[in-house]
């Protein structure tokens, strides 16, 4: 499948490489020094002597805010933009309801997850008033199984994707910003990316174990690549934009450039990544279950899917219920991710 990241690479190739040398001495390193309030001197620049106009300005924290001031709030705009997108809002509510329901469901179900099996009398009973989702092959209530699995899978997926994004963003920022490390990270990336993940996963499962925690960490350890690459490419694009050059000329600090100037552009991508990572993790969990690398003594959506598949088309409800839930989760995150990432893009804030 084609990947939009490639486009970023294209753009980035066109981006001019500008080397900037800043006269360190000209930057005032003590921002706390008493300054006249910018707003009190609205015509300060007009009154400057001509010579001063062509020299580096001293850094004044309040002056720096001056032109940026409006009653604009980033997150308020994000929110305003987001709730305009009705389907996304609805799906978010559906998803939250689904997630909360996973806790409620086990309480209102007639049987709990530790129900005693009875493969002789109760195996594969179709859905009924007694067993709302039918029973599985050993006669346990499938309702309890499905909701337990949903909760476990969502939790794992959310934690893993958060981890992947966090690691990916940090590495991506360093990779993109520190030129000297570019070669190193590029090689590291190529290396990890070209070794099939199943080799790592098998070895980790074999040598450390395959508890949920281990496998979760392993998924994070090899899942940050895409995000990091994406972030790195974006940092590349924006770091040398004119407004950043200007900002740097004005002596703005690095952290401030990264977090106030560049980060807002990243948020939309990060949200989109996150939205794709959650269903991705659930799909990956299914594959890992198929390969025997997940703990199958407790139900998860991946496990239910692969065991139901083996008996399909008999007892087709055993495949249907978990598949519908996975589909809802994926569609939600697809819609919500798109909507939220649009809302997060400052270019859409007017």
């Amino acid at each position: 499948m084609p990947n939009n990241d490639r486009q970023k690479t294209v753009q980035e190739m066109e981006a001019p490489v500008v080397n900037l040398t800043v006269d360190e001495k000209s930057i005032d390193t003590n921002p706390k020094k008493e300054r006249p309030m910018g707003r009190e001197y609205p015509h300060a620049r007009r009154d400057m002597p001509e010579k001063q106009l062509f020299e580096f300005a001293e850094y004044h924290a309040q002056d720096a805010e001056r032109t940026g001031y409006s009653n604009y709030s980033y997150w308020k705009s994000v929110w305003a933009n987001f709730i305009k997108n009705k389907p996304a809002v609805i799906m978010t509510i559906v998803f939250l309801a689904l997630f909360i329901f996973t806790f409620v469901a086990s309480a209102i179900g007639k049987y709990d997850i530790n129900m005693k099996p009875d493969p002789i009398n109760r195996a594969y009973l179709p859905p009924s008033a007694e067993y709302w989702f039918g029973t599985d092959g050993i006669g346990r209530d499938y309702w309890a199984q499905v909701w337990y699995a949903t909760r476990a899978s969502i939790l794992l997926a959310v934690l893993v994707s958060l981890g992947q994004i966090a690691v990916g963003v940090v590495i991506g920022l360093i990779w993109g910003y520190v030129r000297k490390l570019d070669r190193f990270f590029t090689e590291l990336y190529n290396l990890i990316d070209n070794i099939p993940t199943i080799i790592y996963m098998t070895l980790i499962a074999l040598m450390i174990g395959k508890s949920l925690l281990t496998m979760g960490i392993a998924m994070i350890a090899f899942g940050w690549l895409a995000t990091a690459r994406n972030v790195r490419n974006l940092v590349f694009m924006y770091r040398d934009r004119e407004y950043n050059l200007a900002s740097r000329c004005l002596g703005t600090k690095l952290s401030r450039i990264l977090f106030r100037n560049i980060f807002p552009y990243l948020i939309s991508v990060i949200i989109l990544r996150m939205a794709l990572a959650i269903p991705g993790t659930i799909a990956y969990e299914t594959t890992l279950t198929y390969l025997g690398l997940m703990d199958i003594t407790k139900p998860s959506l991946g496990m239910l899917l692969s065991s139901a598949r083996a008996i399909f088309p008999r007892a087709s409800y055993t495949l249907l219920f978990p598949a519908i839930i996975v589909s809802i989760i994926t569609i939600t995150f697809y819609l919500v991710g798109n909507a939220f990432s649009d809302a997060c893009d400052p270019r859409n804030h007017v």
Partner: protein
Amino acid sequence: MVKYILKRTGQSILTILLVVSIVFLLMRLMPSDYFFTEDELIKFTEEQKEDKLRRLGLLDPPLVQLGNFYMNLIKVEQVNDAGKVVTDGTGHLRVSLNLGESMRLEKGQPVTKVIAQKMGISMNIGLISLAISLVLGVVLGVLQANFKDGLIDQIGTAYTVIVNAVPHLVIYTVIMIAGASWFKLPMRYSGRMNTELSMVLPIICLSVGSTAGYMLWTRRYMVDELNKDYIRLAKLKGLSNTQVMFRHVLRNAFVPLAQYLPYSILLTVGGSLLVETFFSVPGMGPELTKAISRYDLNLVQGIVLLYATMGIIGVFLGDILMTLIDPRIKLTGKGDVR
């Protein structure tokens, strides 16, 4: 350009060697009992097991094994016209890649031969499916972009979302059962009878997902492009919609797709784990997992070498292809990250 290609080739070879070496050493971390079947574990004594492993060189220190692997990688031998190896100096030289012999899955067969056979079948199915999904995906994507927010666009979006939402495991199962019971299509690949017919279902399975992918990205790139100023200018100038769409929009939108194309083509050698397992296609898809779990280290080595090479060459070719179709792009050696 030439300098760039040379430099990039050098880097690629280095990366491939590094990948292969790391996998080689990683695989040596696995316990060697995986080499034996449960049948054999029951019947073999410890001593017999050790003999067997020693004979295959698996008990040497990993670095020695790695050295041996590289020492024997290129095999130069003299062969006569009939292809038989001779030692009396009458034949001509033949240079071949020697990845050793499969230790388990096809005991004693050269890894290159095993991979070549499986690769052919996977590529056959993969390329047909790639062609289908590329054509279908791009055409539908163009239609979607052209009638943005119309019925076609909505159906198309629904399709892409569903395909991405429903787990592939489930989609494949449904296609398999439906195809077999309603259309009476063979649900097992056969190289012997009705080969073409038996490839239909695996190809459909493979195409379902990638068509959705091409649709999604074609539409997205086209829409992005449509919003650009030069398109408005072109329309104002009075160019017909078709001309604008195909001469300008599609051409520009196709660049990022094209960059990915060589990679996709080359990676069809890898096959698909799920599809090939489900339809008993004797291809590359399940081979890596099987080779790992059966400790067939030579085969793992060969497969990883193949994947890494194809992946790296694919990206390389993609970048070059892109400069060819879009003269604005220059390769600088920077940012050659996939």
